[in-house]
């Protein structure tokens, strides 16, 4: 292999209490990609993200990000956690939430610097939420919160963005806005995004990663009804886009 892959998983296995969630997963992602992670609930999508972030340690195999162990590469990653695990009544303003994205091992002691505040406001502008800066996080709608948390992930100008269901709780128009925003970050930022609605996403992403204990990488062109049916165990409606779709299966054998 000539260039070092941005993300490299080598035969990674992980399970909770002896129940395997991912087994023997290998995956390489090049810089500048926009990937969607799809698969059934419990299939290991969030676990895969957390392994890449170094929040979980592989029980077997090896994860490298930017050629280094994940914990050493965290400063270059941005992360949007799964919707709705935060305390919805926590007393914090939107700007304060986004500023958390500027924290570092030694950054953010005492009062925030003007540079940090400006970077946070810029991140809010990127998600068209600058007008919310002074509002309480608890007062926002689900879609607004999601935008603010994306801004938090963007606040430190990451080179790799990992998003766990960024469009959950967002209305369809807002969903297109969010996806357009992520697409606009290409190719400067590599994006990995867990999603449920493949039909929306396939117009934006260039690869689809199917995650269901194992992992299979597909160019978007291969994504079709058969793949979705294999993945979820039943057919699902999918909006077709202008690109030509060919037959293919998510997992062979």
């Amino acid at each position, binding site marked *: 292999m000539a260039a070092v892959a941005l993300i490299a998983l080598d035969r990674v296995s992980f399970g909770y209490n002896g129940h395997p969630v991912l087994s023997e997963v290998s995956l390489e992602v090049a810089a500048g990609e926009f990937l969607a992670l799809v698969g059934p609930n419990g299939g290991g999508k969030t676990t895969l993200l957390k392994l890449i972030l170094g*929040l979980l340690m592989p029980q077997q195999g090896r994860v490298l990000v930017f050629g280094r162990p994940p914990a050493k590469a965290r400063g270059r990653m941005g992360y949007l956690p799964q919707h709705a695990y935060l305390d919805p009544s926590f007393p914090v303003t939107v700007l304060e939430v986004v500023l958390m994205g*500027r924290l570092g091992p030694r950054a953010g002691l005492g009062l925030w610097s003007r540079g940090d505040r400006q970077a946070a406001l810029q991140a809010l502008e990127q998600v068209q939420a600058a007008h919310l800066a002074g509002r309480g996080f*608890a007062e926002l709608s689900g879609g607004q919160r999601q935008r603010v948390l994306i801004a938090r992930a963007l606040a430190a100008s990451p080179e790799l963005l990992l998003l766990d269901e960024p469009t959950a709780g967002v209305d369809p128009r807002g969903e297109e806005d969010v996806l357009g925003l992520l697409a606009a970050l290409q190719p400067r930022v590599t994006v990995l995004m867990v999603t449920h609605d493949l039909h929306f996403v396939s117009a934006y992403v260039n690869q689809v990663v199917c995650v269901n204990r194992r992992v299979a990488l597909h160019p978007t062109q291969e994504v079709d009804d058969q793949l979705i049916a294999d993945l979820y165990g039943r057919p699902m409606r999918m909006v077709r886009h202008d690109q030509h779709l060919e037959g293919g299966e998510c997992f062979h054998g």
Partner: protein
Amino acid sequence: MAEFLAALSQHAFLQQALLAGLLASLACGVIGAYVVVRRISYLAGAIAHSVLGGMGLARYLAVTQGWAWLHPLYGAVAAALAAALVVGLVTLKARQREDTIIGAIWAVGMAVGVLFIAATPGYDVELMSYLFGNILMVTPANLWLMLGLDLLALAVAFVFHNQLLAVCFDEEFARLRGVNSNLYFLLLLALTALTVVLLSTVVGIILVIALLTLPAAIAANYARRLWQIMALAVLISMAFTTGGLALSYGPDLPAGAVIIVLAGAAYLLVSAGRWLFRRA
């Protein structure tokens, strides 16, 4: 009330009591707000009750070894910090039986204190004032120690506010940003321990938990930023300690208990008011 004001201008012990209440309120409002938003009042309760062990040991050593300088408050600070460390490590490491272990620390700390007090020669009149506080017994030396603890807690809370806020709001994300979440969680418990000691001089270790949490819980209804809750909680706590002291003076009631009942009544009123307001 007029009687209280007249007595206040005459008696130094009453002025010291008032000052003790105001000093304790500073840390109470600031650290209490963290305790409320991070939902760790149960951990604060365990730390508070463990303090009796330290107070009992210090008292025992002071009497039996003749170490007159060893005031129970020093024992309280040491025991509170040790309990904070143990409680914190249990919370971080032993997720399965966490509540069982915390509850045990709670009771064992008290039991150790009771044993030391029983073994100490002389009358054990001290026990009641450790448990329920005796704000009228505060000495100028106590006040200096309280001021020191206050300044320490407030300075640490100010310098690390952004980190503590992030760890309370989203521990996982903070960790990803290179913030040592576990360390800051332990720091927060250590600050809680110092605050518990401060408040225990006012209302005693059994009643601490209400005074630590109720002002911040009331303030949280009226503010949407953490520092605003802190500032408001400081004022509310000052009102409770001062009001409780004044109300208890005339009829000669225990000040600590009156302060707590006052805080509980205020919380109930505010909650009921909000409930009615929302239905209207």
